[in-house]
Structure formats: C-alpha cells, structure tokens
C-alpha cells in the first residue's frame, strides 16, 4: 500500500512539475522498454542503468513501464512473429545472429528468443515516436488539463478529505 501510494505520488508529481517535458518523455520512452520486453531479460539491466544514470524522469519511466506492460502481454504474439521473421526468415541476418549467439556475454542477452528480439526491435522502432508523443502530451497536459484538475471542485473536495491527508503522509 505504501509503495503504491508513493508510486501514485511520484507519477502525479512527474506529470505536474518534476522535470522538463523532455525528461519525462525520455523516461516514458525508456520505461516503455521495460514494459514491452520481458522484464527479466538482461538487456533491461542496461535500460535500468540508463534510466538511473541519464537525467530522465524516473517517475516518467515508471509511468512508461505501467502503460506499456499490458501492451507487452497483448502484443506478445506479434513480437513472436517479428522475432521469428528476423531470426529464421531472413537468411541475410543469419551470420549476425550466429555471431551474437556465439559471443560470450552478448549471447546472455537472449536475443535468439523470438519474443525478446521481437519486442526489443519493436520498442527500438517505437522509442522515438513514444518520446515525441509523450513530450507533446506532457506539455499540453501541464498547459491545459493539469491546472484545471488542480483547480477543479473535485480536486478541492478531495484535498479536504482525510484520504488526501493520508496520501500526503507518504510524500517522499
């Protein structure tokens, strides 16, 4: 429960004030990798390192993960087809896969799995569109919808409740 509250708070903060729209959008794009590709894949260590080391919004990355995760499950058959086509349907790529498969450490990335490769390639293709869409989306949200929600009667009413006080208790 505590974690959930903190997570919600960080997401709300990310959308409202923390970080520039670019940083939030970059976080969302990187977080989408964690959601679209199988989480326990070694390449996600690199993604996590990138989220931590690059000045991108960590809550944004969490948002990206949460939004992309269901799509990851839903699109698995598509990833399987894409990965299958790349691994076995393109003889020109076979030498590359053979090299990766037989290279120490790199072979641990499990890029020879259809779902891992298909989802990773799909994310790589979608990363930039996700970034730009998210940047526009966050900017617009802050300019239009965000202040309205802040000033809305519902939000004011929510702020007056004990639940909001409880929510504030978990602010980081």
């Amino acid at each position, binding site marked *: 429960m505590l974690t959930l509250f903190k997570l919600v708070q960080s997401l709300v903060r990310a959308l409202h004030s923390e970080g520039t729209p670019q940083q939030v959008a970059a976080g969302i794009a990187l977080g989408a990798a964690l959601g679209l590709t*199988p989480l*326990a894949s070694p390449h996600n*260590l690199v993604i*996590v*390192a990138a989220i*931590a*080391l*690059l*000045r991108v919004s960590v809550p944004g990355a969490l948002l990206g993960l949460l939004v992309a995760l269901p799509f*990851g*499950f839903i699109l*698995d*058959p598509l*990833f*399987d087809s894409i*990965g*299958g086509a790349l*691994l*076995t349907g393109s003889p020109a790529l*076979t030498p590359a*896969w*053979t090299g990766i*498969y*037989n*290279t*120490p*450490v790199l*072979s*641990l990335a*499990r890029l*020879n*799995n*259809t*779902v*891992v490769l*298909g989802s990773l390639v799909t994310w790589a293709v979608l990363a930039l569109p996700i970034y730009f869409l998210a940047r526009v989306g966050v900017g617009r949200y802050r300019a239009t919808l965000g202040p309205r929600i802040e000033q809305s009667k519902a939000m004011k009413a929510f702020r007056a409740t004990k639940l909001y006080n409880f929510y504030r208790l978990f602010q980081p």
Partner: protein
Amino acid sequence: MARLRLFRWRAIVPLLLFVGLLVVGWLLLLDRIVERGIEAVGTHIVGARVDLAEADVRLADGAVVLRGLEVTNPDRPMTNLFEADEIVADIRTLPLLEQKVAIDTVAVRGLRFGTEREASGAITDPSPASGRVAREVTTWADAVRFPEFSLEGLGQAVNVGAVAPESLRTVSEAEGLIAQSAAVRERWDRTLAALDAERVIDSARALVEQLQQADVRALGPLGVTRLAGSTRETIGHLGEFTERVQSLDDAARSDFAGLQQDLGRLAAARQADYAYARSLLRLPSMDAPDISPALFGEAAVGWIKPVLYWLQLAEQYLPPGLDPRRYSASGRARSAGTTVTFPREGGQPRFLLEHAEASVELGGSGLEAGAYRAVVRGLTSSPALYGKPLEFLLRRGEADVGPADIRVAALLDHVAAPVHDSIEVSAGGIELGSLDLPSVGARLVPGRGAAALSLDRRGGELAGEWSWRSAAVTWERLGAESGAGQSGGARPPIGSREWADEFLWRTVSGIRNVEVAVRFSGELTGPELAVRSNVGDVIALSLRRELGREIQRAELEVRNQVDALVGPGVTRARSSVAGLESMLREDIGVPLDALIRARADLEQEIQRLTRRLPGGIRIPGGR
C-alpha cells in the same frame, strides 16, 4: 543559460548497489534456479516429470552436485526410468557466458532403474517435441493390426449355405464371358454375311472348269491370249479377296485368343472363390507365421514402442548438421516464444557432456548382484560441432556375484546426415515380466531368462530384432477361477469354448522353453513388425494333429459347394467359346483354304494352256 547536464552521477552508487543486490540474490538463488532449470528441461525432453531434490552449484570449483534425481518413465508414470542418489559434474565455466553447458566428467552414484514412484510422473502438457513423438508412436501402435486367433465357433464352421452364388467371382466372370462371346459371335455373323465368300469361290471354280475344257487349237493364239488375260485379271481379284479374308482370319484368331485368356482366368477366379468360401468358415490358420503374431503381436507393439520413442526423441535433440534450430522456450509469465540456436563451426555446442561414468552396485547374493559400470561419451546437442558419435556402454564389472549379465552398447552417429544408430542390448539371467495371452486363455510366466535387442538405423530406415527366451516357463490359466475349461465328463464338441480352452491349455501348458522374436524393419516412423515364436509352432502342430481331418473335411465341403455353384456357368462359358471357335473356323478358315486352292488351280491351268500353243508361241505375260 544553464548547461545541460546529461548524467546523474549521484545515481552510480545506488545503481551499483542495485546490481550488487541482484548478483547476491542470483547467487543465493542459483541452486534453486539450476534445480528448477534441470527439472524443466528434463521434463521438456523426456515428456514426463523429472524431479530433483537438490542442486549444489559451486561456480568457483566448476562443479555441480545434483542429489535425488528421478526421471519418470513416460510409458509408466508410476515408475522411474532411473533414479540417481548423487550426480557430480565438472563443468567448464567459460561456456556458461555463452549460455552453453560443457561438462567434462560426470560421476553418478546410487543409480537404480525401474524404481517405483510415490506420485505419478505423467504430465498433462508435454513439450511440442516429446508430445509430437509420443503421439506419432501411439498412432503407429494403434494402426498396427495382427490377425485374430480364435478356435471358438469351429463346430459351426461348415455352413455351405453361407456361400452365395452372387458373392462368387467365378460366376460373375463366367456370365461376363458368355455375354462377351455372344457379342463377338454376333459381330462376326454380320461381317461374314457381308463378305459372301461362297460366291467368289464358286466363280473361281467355274473358271477353273472352263479352262480345263478349253481347246487350244480351236481358240488359236489370239483366243488363248484373251482367255489367259481375263483369267489373270480374275486371279488378281481373287488375291485381293483372299488377303481380305486372311486379315479377317487374323482378327478372328485375336478375338478368340482373348476369349481363351478370359476362360483361363476363370480357374484363378475359382481359386479365389475357394479362399473366400474358406474364409467364411472361420477356420483357424494352422501356419505358425500366422499364429505367433496373433498371440504376441500386441505385446510386441508394447516392446517396440519405447524403442521408437527414444530413437525419435534422440533425433529431435541430437540433430545432425549446423542449421539453425528452434526450441520452444521454457515457461514464463509472458509468452515464452521460440529460442533459435545458431551453431557455428568450431564453436561450442549448446550442451556437451564429454564423459560420464556411473557405477551401479546391486548387493546381496541374488542373480543380479554385482557391480555394473555405465559410460557415456559425447552426449551433445550438436553432434556436428563435437564431431564424434555418442557412445554408451553398460556392462557388468568384475565384482559379480550372481549369473545375471547385462550389456548395453550404443553408438549414435549424428555427426552428419544420414544419421546412423547402432544399439546392442543383451541381458541374461534376468527376471522377465509375465505376459497375458487372452487368445490362449493363459498367462505366460517366463521366470528368469535372456533378452536381447539389436538395432540398426540409417537415416529414416530402421531394422532390428527384439527377442527373449526362457527355459523355465510356467503357465497360469486365465479365468481359472470361473471354472472355464474344467475337464471331466463328455468331451466338449469341437469349436465350443470349453473345447478351445481345454485344447489350448493342454497345448501350451506343456511348453517349458519359450522363444519370442520381434523383427522390425522399414521407416522409423512406422516400421513393419514380424513376430515369431515356438509357441506358435507348437500350437500349429497341435492344431494340425487335432483338427487336420476336421478342417480337411470342411474345406472339401466348401470346395464342392463352390464347384456346384460355379460349374454350370463355367461349362456354358466354355461351350460358348468353343462354339464360336468352331463357327469362325467353319466360316473363315474353310473359305480361306478354298480361295487359296482356287487361285493355285487357276495359275496352274493358265500355265497348262499356254504350254500347249503350237510352234512354241509365247503369249505376253506367259511363263
């Protein structure tokens, strides 16, 4: 303007801590991960549960110790294929960085075969490979058919009324032949009527007579010349007509030969009718090659099924060549997808076991007591990369106590296509499982005996023999508790259940030496089976002795019945063909002879006429 700061340097320490935590967690869970991995992969390959009690991974030493390994027999889920108390493997650590497992040596202790399981090892969702192989082998086993063996109903066998004329091939073929003969006759009648050979022959004969009576002096050279000319013209016409009749004669002979051929086929049809009528009698075959498969066929399929299963599975997991291979990935919360491997010449196989040794000690003073040694060399997922065939050897060590002997030698050469597998198994003095033979109403209890398997597989072709023999066989009567087959009182009638039970029990219960051999050959996915056994020989001999006269009488009766049904038809067909032959000879052969003779006579008369011309005058065209 504030300088863009790309890196969050203060995150390095937490990140390193996070990675460190992951590594520590992984190391703590490594034993469990390996244990689960071996269970999952083993179950995936075998097609039945593989359980491991504990795994102890020591990466620094390059050693893995597995304890309490149980591999279920896919054919008998409550039995383990084998069980091992402890397996110690020396692994190479560098290939692990390529997700490859290379094991230098394995030592197995406490290996036992065929142990009972506490819980069923069957799995509901086998891997696609093992599931497909199991399905294919089961489909083959279900499709194999053996003749039935039953002596019941023999008394009611001779029922000649069951042989209906319309079911006999000879009757229908004879009727067809009669109709065909009539059609040919009708056609020839029309052709010969249009020919009118008699008129031509009469005209030629008249001319011959005219020439014979001609007076050369009265005719003079001019008259003779005229007469010779007109005669030669007639000879020419006669020759053309003769040729026409000759061609008709050839056609008639061809028609007749066809009918004669059809007539000859009636004999073969009658033989087929004898066989058909005999099959209606439910007479048991008295040939051992038919009886043995009927007795042991089902059991033979059960013996050969596992052989085919493991051979096909070996082909799945030890494929030849270096093409990319697909494996269904292990289960995950998300779709597991397919893992494709890309072997490279000179690279490491995905799995390699260089050398494994297992020692098995059976204590006590029993027949099997003693030490056994099993050696495996070159078990790999990529035989082409390893470059050598898989060798497996199991044999008795020196510390043998009892007389039992087991020897297994296998060489699986999958380095390149076509694959070549050679397996020899021999076991002596071992306890052979009992076998129910419902068609004989008895259970065969072989006791201790010898079994052997010899197999040679090249590419998709397989040939081999599975055999066992025992010299101390005992028999138990099936359903003895129901009192079936009790002797005493009047002798039961032939063909009754009591008679069949009594006869078969009397026959088999005296057999002490039993040998059964199953030969299999053909395609790996569906070999042909041939079963032979001395039990079949003995039953065949007894049947001949007991039933020989009965069966001969029944066979004679049905033959007579078939003869009675087909005889009239065949006689009519014969006479129809004979009548046609006589007609054709009369209407074509005889006129043809007459035409040839008339032409020769005319030639002769012309020569005679021209020779009598006075003063040696020659006429044009004269010879």
